[in-house]
């Protein structure tokens, strides 16, 4: 309490993307509240934020759980703009949702204009092995192609749920540190630019 004047813990903004019904909200709620919600209710846009311990460091995670439904596709750009990391989720029991990840990836890259944006491809519902439509290979191939990690999770059994969030946050943190370094010293920045120029030259 007395340490209030100290800097607020770093805030990492995570955005859950993916088609409707793949389990974005389920993953979020499982991560946030250890709770598995059975009944399906389409999300419009939900916000969650909580303090967690990431590798011994207090951080705040802000999760924006977005709508998967096409109806809301038009406003996604706005959301994506504020995100610092993305969990792109599909259901391994539904090929269509896997195909849709392509579209989401493109949209994110377009909005963020950054190839290295922290991004994880997540195949959810891995507890339903018998209904699997998307093979692990297929998914990890795509991930490799994008240069991102692929993780299979189950919101129901909580398998890898923490992992995906923590992994993503680590990526975000690493990236922020990098940015800080670059912006910290302007000299460095300029020198880098010069360097770049030199290279081009």
């Amino acid at each position, binding site marked *: 309490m007395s340490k209030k004047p100290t800097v607020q813990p770093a805030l990492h903004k995570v955005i859950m993307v993916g088609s409707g019904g793949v389990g974005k909200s389920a993953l979020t709620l499982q991560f946030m509240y250890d709770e598995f919600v059975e009944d399906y209710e389409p999300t*419009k*846009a939900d*916000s*969650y934020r*909580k303090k967690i311990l990431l590798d011994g460091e207090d951080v705040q995670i802000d999760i924006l759980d977005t709508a998967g439904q096409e109806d809301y596709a038009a406003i996604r750009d706005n959301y994506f703009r504020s995100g610092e990391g993305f969990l792109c989720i599909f259901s391994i029991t539904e090929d269509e949702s896997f195909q849709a990840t392509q579209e989401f990836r493109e949209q994110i890259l377009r909005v963020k204009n950054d190839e290295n944006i922290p991004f994880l491809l997540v195949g959810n519902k891995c507890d339903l092995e018998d209904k699997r439509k998307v093979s692990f290979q297929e998914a990890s191939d795509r991930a490799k192609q994008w240069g991102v990690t692929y993780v299979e999770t189950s919101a129901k059994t909580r398998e890898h749920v923490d992992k995906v969030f923590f992994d993503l946050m680590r990526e975000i943190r690493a990236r922020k540190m990098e940015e800080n370094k670059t912006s910290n010293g302007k000299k460095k920045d300029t020198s880098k630019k010069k360097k770049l120029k030199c290279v081009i030259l």
Partner: protein
Amino acid sequence: MTPPPIVTGLSPNEGPPGTKITIRGENFGTKPTDLTGLKVCGCDCLLSAEWKSPNKIIAISGPGKGKGDIIVTTRLGGEGVCNVSFKGYYETVGSLKESAVWVEEAPYFGGKHSLSSSSYQQEDPLGLSVEGNDKKFPEDDLKELFPNSSGNIALENFSPGWFLLENHHVTSFNDLKAGLLHLRRKVEGQKEGQLSFLKSNISSVVDQLDTIGSMKDKFRCDLTEYGNEPTLKLDKSIKECERDARKLFDDVLTRRDRAEKTRNALNVLARFRFLFCLPCVIERNIKKGDYEIVINDYMRVKNLFNKSDVAVFKTALNEIEKKVAGLQKMLHQKLVQMPISVEEQKRLIRHLVNLESPYEPAWDAIQSHSEYINLRMRHCYEEHKVAEAIFIEEISKAKGGSSTSKYSKFNQPPQDLSSIPENVLFIEDLCEIVSELFPDLWKLGQAYFTGDLHVKVEPGRQVGFKHIVLSIMEAFCKTLRSAIIPHTLDKSTDKATYGTWSTPDSDTIKPWLPACLRYVRSTYSILIKLDLPSEALDIVFKFILDLRIHCMSVLFKQASDQIEQLSKQETWKIEFTGKHNGVTELPIKFEQSVQEVIQIVRESVLLSEQREGSLLDNPTANKELDKQVDSLLSMFHKVLSNLSLKKDNDDDDECTTVVSQLIGTPTASYRTHNSKSQLPIWEHRLLTTLSNCQYTRLVVLKNLEEGFTKGGYPAPKVALDNCCSKLEALEKSVLELYLEEKSDPLVGTIEPSMYLERFDWDTQIKPTDVRPYVKECINNLIHVHSEVNSISPTLVNSVLPQVVQTISEEIYRLMVCVQKFSKAGILQARVDINTLQHFFQNYSTSKAKYYFKEALDTIPALETSEQLIIEEILKVCKKRMKLQILCLQQPITNGVLK
């Protein structure tokens, strides 16, 4: 301390008013009632909040607008914090769209709307439907994108980009194209507007032109006809008209003015007449009793002429004032004249107040009322005192005359009993007076102080009134006390002031005490209903308490006396009830009278009525009760002991101790029954009392204890125990007395009988039977047995062994004293003692057995051959005395035989 609630999750994070929000977080309390507050964007949404779990609440958003926190407040955790924010926004509402809140249907593109007033719904400039445009484009983003711009089409800084994003970001490209076309068409239409308007309305335009032309022609015509000023002629004729009209109506108007003047004069005259006639009118009305009319007239005249300086008026006014003063005096007299109803008094007070009387009518009325009550109380006392004096005189006369006239002596007592004592009548009357008059006084006082009488309450009157009320209560209670319980009046001065009665403590009043209590209580209940201050009520309350205690002790004393009388009522008629011994009616009567008094006291005294504490909470009452119960129970003990221990002198003379039947004359051996009294013999009475004692101790006392507890009394344990032990002691002494009475003569006869006819143990006569003294002894014992058994079979066991023991002792003593036994004497002695042993074996205590054995041992031993002879004799003897053996068998068999 419970940590404050924290909101960490919202679903959804934005929405229009009425959105159902799932709020997640921590420390939302452990039960629904823990949730004490919920604010969404500053709007209180607690009403719609639904507590689901310690980390989930579902609520409906209110009309908050813009980004804001969701603050949860819990009972223990206080106001919480919020990590996430909710954004409320208002939707464009069409006629078909549901909305949770009132949304203005104001057009958001200004003036344009008024043109398209034909359309109910605001029109999109692109001619496209805005319906279904659910998803609003974030306003913040728009502001960011288009700084210093607005989406309002009517504003100067209108930005088409903003407008399109705000209203059409979901519109398809094709629709937008169509919209553009529509817009273009509209613009075209506006450009060529004027010309097309003229074209379409050509005929009406031509009509208008024609009309204007004809109007111009007409005007020109008029000009030539009437010159340049066409209104001159008109003006002239109007003036003419006015003049004529004046001529016509002047006459009427003056007449009207005159009439008005006359009327005014008449009014004034009437007023004067009213003034001058008023004294007469007032007098007449006073006679008729129409005071209200008088008051009205008086007010009126005062209003009209009070300020007048005219001498005539003044004298008239003076006269009126005089009359009114007289009326005031009369009314005041009426007011203080008692008796009078409160309503009447109130009316009079109102009149007096209206007449601006110099008196203080309300207060005077109160005072006169209180005086009246006091007076009535005093009168009542005097009346009854006189009646009492007459009564006493009569009694004394009757007493004086009793010696001369037998008639009056017989006539007096019943009259004495039936007539109610004068002080009881007095109490009844006094209670009636107070319950009748006091409420009026109190009502009057209340009306006075609450302002119902429209009188200004003088300072200090409140205290004065309280004093009056208290003093009346005091006088009432003290007078009552002096009449029935004068011992509670501590000061002798009080006794003098509140009167003394000659009979308060005499027995005549006692039966009337409950009735007195009833009277006082009914008055008390009336007083309680009046809502008197507790100070005043307490006076009566205390009196009632004292009266109750007194009444209780008197009732108990009465019962006690009644029980004392029981000793005279003892009939000695034995009744057998159930498993108990024979008892007389005495204990039953005792129980009855105690139960009766319990019942009466409970009904009349103990049961507390309105605003009366339980009597038994009062320590003095409790002590008194204990004392009375104790004396009540002791009284019975006294009765019993009197009955049993008192030997009648007659009896003593008649009954000498039993003399041996063998010696004495047969007539002397029987106790001649006293022919004068039908009392049973004393021994019987002893036994009966013993049995009564037992019955009382074992049955009646238990019943009484039950009766006491049932009646709501505290169980009088001490008194009961006391009585019990007393009875036990009595039993013991009675038993001893009886034993003494019985065994002394019985034992006393043995020796003379033994040596009757100069018998000597050194005899040579061979024994053939037991000696007569043995038979006599046995018969005597049987006699005792039968006597005891006839009254109380259970007593047999405690009486007989004692007797047998004394017999055995005597036998032993006699045997020791024998100097010499002959052979035959030895035989005889052995036969005798063996017989006794055999007959008394059922009632022999170990001590008795021991004495018998010792007696045998003192007799010289026998040879075995002689033993046979003894047995032979015994056998014969037993056979002969079979009946006697049967008599002395176990008491149980006796009981059955009976």
